[in-house]
């Protein structure tokens, strides 16, 4: 019997007009960094240079914060809310118009499959602006008092896993509630943020309302510590989140923190197994597992574990790993050499601690950073691969006998961002959803996102929510809380 093979279906790079050099976006204009320093951003799938990007230091940050403060005082806080909303609608529309270009640039800079940037990242980013645009002139109905007030200038720091989408999660609510922002994209994925700066120009957004500064962790720390910032919004690792919490402990600054996770995906014996397998694959292999809410711990009932694992392995053999620009690709490149090293290091501890590794046979490209889809069975709760966030396509499988044991294992983590439940019994799902200590529970589905749906973690997965009515709270001053 002949086997049907996929033909190549490459997306074209031609639509992406990536400049060779980018400055910092401050006060509505691209400016050169004061020290004239820059760094490279590369395509992780080929290791080719994409562009040189300005490196912002303290003096650049100061300029950006001043420009945001001026815009807040003189323009943005004086603008009728209805007009503020219309700018956000414009941005949403321009993102939709330029969606294909954004998807291509995102995939080139990040390494994620074009299918995901095209179908998830960019449409959701546009949707976030559209959703929040509508809030701008309805804040008095949002349940945060009759005269909700913005905080002022917000410093925002975002990760590399969903560059434009995380930008939208940050900028859309901040602007809708009347704040101005200084945003720092991740060091390895600055391009779509810089492209977004052009969108702000096209939308005619008043100068200084959005400022985008590029750099590394040092740049981010300087932004956090700038004295004229009112609030920090951060998405990233729990370690950095705690460092931010410490830095602002003696200041008036507030923070929302979206941090790490080690989500349990619980599969009960009465689950629809084929659907659960799809959910498990989506839960851990979506975006190369570079997802803070990834379902990285599969906790499956012992009675169906063998059947499920057999089906899961069969399904994993069908995952297409390779060129992110190919529309058939399921699993793209690991975002950076550093991340690949981290995934290897934690995964190797799984071997060393006695878990059993399995990956389908995949041919990885010679250039670029790659890691095959991987599962570990025979994992115990004390193993590092069951406790630490790997942030890669690596799944740890644990089993349980009773529902009580399932919850016990699921909650045995310092994290509490998300969890999954698979069962055909409604009462059991609601029971489990109630017991699980996590901010987002996906039942009989996984990794679903929507601007109307609040997202954020319990415990050490962070502070506050993003999205929905609840996400507005983090950008409005509280009428019940004392400002120090």
């Amino acid at each position, binding site marked *: 019997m002949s086997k049907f093979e996929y033909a190549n279906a490459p997306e074209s790079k031609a639509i992406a007009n990536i400049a060779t050099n980018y400055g910092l976006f401050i006060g509505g204009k691209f400016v050169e960094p004061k020290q004239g320093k820059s760094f490279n951003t590369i395509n992780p799938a080929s290791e080719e240079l994409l562009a040189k990007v300005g490196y912002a230091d303290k003096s650049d940050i100061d300029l950006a914060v001043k420009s945001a403060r001026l815009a807040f005082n003189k323009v943005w806080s004086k603008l009728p809310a209805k007009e503020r909303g219309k700018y956000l609608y414009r941005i949403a529309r321009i993102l939709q118009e330029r969606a294909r270009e954004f998807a291509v640039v995102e995939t080139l800079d990040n390494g994620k499959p074009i299918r995901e940037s095209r179908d998830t990242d960019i449409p959701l980013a546009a949707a976030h602006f559209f959703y929040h645009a509508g809030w701008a002139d309805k804040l008095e109905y949002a*349940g945060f008092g009759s005269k909700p007030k913005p905080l002022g200038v917000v410093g925002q720091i975002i990760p590399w896993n969903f560059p434009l989408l995380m930008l939208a999660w940050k900028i859309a609510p901040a602007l809708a509630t009347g704040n101005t922002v200084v945003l720092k994209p991740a060091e390895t994925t600055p391009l779509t943020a810089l492209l977004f700066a052009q969108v702000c120009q096209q939308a005619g957004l008043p100068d200084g309302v959005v400022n985008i500064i590029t750099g590394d962790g040092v740049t981010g720390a300087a932004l956090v510590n700038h004295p004229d910032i009112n609030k920090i919004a951060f998405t990233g690792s729990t370690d950095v989140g705690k*460092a931010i919490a410490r830095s602002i402990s003696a200041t008036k600054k507030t923070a929302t923190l979206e941090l790490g996770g080690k989500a349990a995906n619980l599969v009960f014996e009465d689950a629809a197994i084929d659907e659960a397998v799809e959910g498990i694959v989506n839960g851990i292999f979506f975006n190369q597992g570079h997802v803070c809410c990834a379902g990285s711990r599969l906790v499956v009932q012992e009675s169906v574990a063998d059947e499920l694992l057999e089906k899961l392995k069969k399904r994993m053999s069908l995952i297409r790993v390779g060129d992110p620009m190919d529309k058939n690709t399921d699993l793209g490149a690991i975002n950076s050499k550093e991340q690949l090293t981290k995934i290897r290091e934690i995964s190797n501890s799984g071997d060393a601690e006695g878990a059993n590794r399995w990956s389908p046979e995949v041919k990885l490209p010679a250039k670029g950073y790659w890691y095959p889809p991987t599962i570990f069975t025979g994992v115990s709760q004390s193993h590092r691969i069951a406790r630490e966030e790997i942030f890669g396509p690596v799944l740890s499988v644990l089993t349980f006998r009773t529902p009580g044991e399932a919850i016990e294992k699921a909650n045995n983590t310092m994290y509490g961002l998300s969890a999954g439940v698979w069962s055909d019994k409604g009462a059991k*799902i609601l029971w489990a959803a109630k017991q699980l200590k996590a901010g*987002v529970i996906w039942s009989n589905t996984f990794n679903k996102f929507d601007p109307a749906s609040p997202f954020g973690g319990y*415990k050490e997965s962070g502070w506050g929510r993003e999205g*929905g009515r609840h996400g507005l709270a983090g950008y409005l001053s509280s009428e019940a*809380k*004392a400002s*120090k």
Partner: protein
Amino acid sequence: MSRIDVNKTYKLFIGGTFPRSESGRVYEVKAANKKFLANPALASRKDLRDAVVAAKSAQAGWASATAFNRGQILYRIAEMMQGRADQFTEEIVALEGVTNKVAKLQIEEAIDTWVWYSGWCDKLSTYAGSQNQVAGPFYNFTTPEPLGVVAIFAESKPSLLGAVRTLAPVMAGGNTAVLIASENFPLPAITLGEVLSTSDVPAGVVNILSGKTSELYPWIGSHMEIDGVDVAGLSKRQEDELKLVGADNLKRISRFSTANHPERILSFMEQKTIWHPIGI
């Protein structure tokens, strides 16, 4: 010869019982007129740890009680407090040096605070939850859930009301509490334990410690089983230090500026969002 009064020994309230400090320490509390009033327990780090263990053990039960039930228990506290109004009046007058009338007003407000938060218990997800209109065939809703164990530094004055308006919202949300009584005005907060123990509040839901604030707050900051802190009774410097140490487990730390407000409840709750597909 006139009768000699039988004075009360002011002890701690931990896990539903009234122990002395394991350290054997007490400290002297004086009345507004500088006369000796009592030797309440001076809680140690070990007492704090015991209180947290009791609070942690009671948490799941308190959180899973129906909201209606929690509301009734908070209302019961108001009833019991009304019955003990005279006892609180005496303590407040002696401690704060206020008139009977002023003390009475404070007690009435404290009782009404219990009633106000009692009514909130079963309205929290109506007020602060939502059903979210996502762009797809999913049922999606968000509902508040308790944080866990919350430590409270009660305000100094008004001594009774300062304890009640910090404690009641924490309980209403389904959290269990470790209340640190005001160092200089602790007696009404300690007596509050006697009210709670006769109001159907399950053991461990509220634990009350008296002692030195300056000694206790660093340990509360670093305790990994404490999830939230109301810093009403701390100085700005103490609050900053507690926030620095509290970052180790990302404690939710709040100070409020208004008296009764639902945000006092919701600041010690998490929002959980649940998705489920719709389809046949």
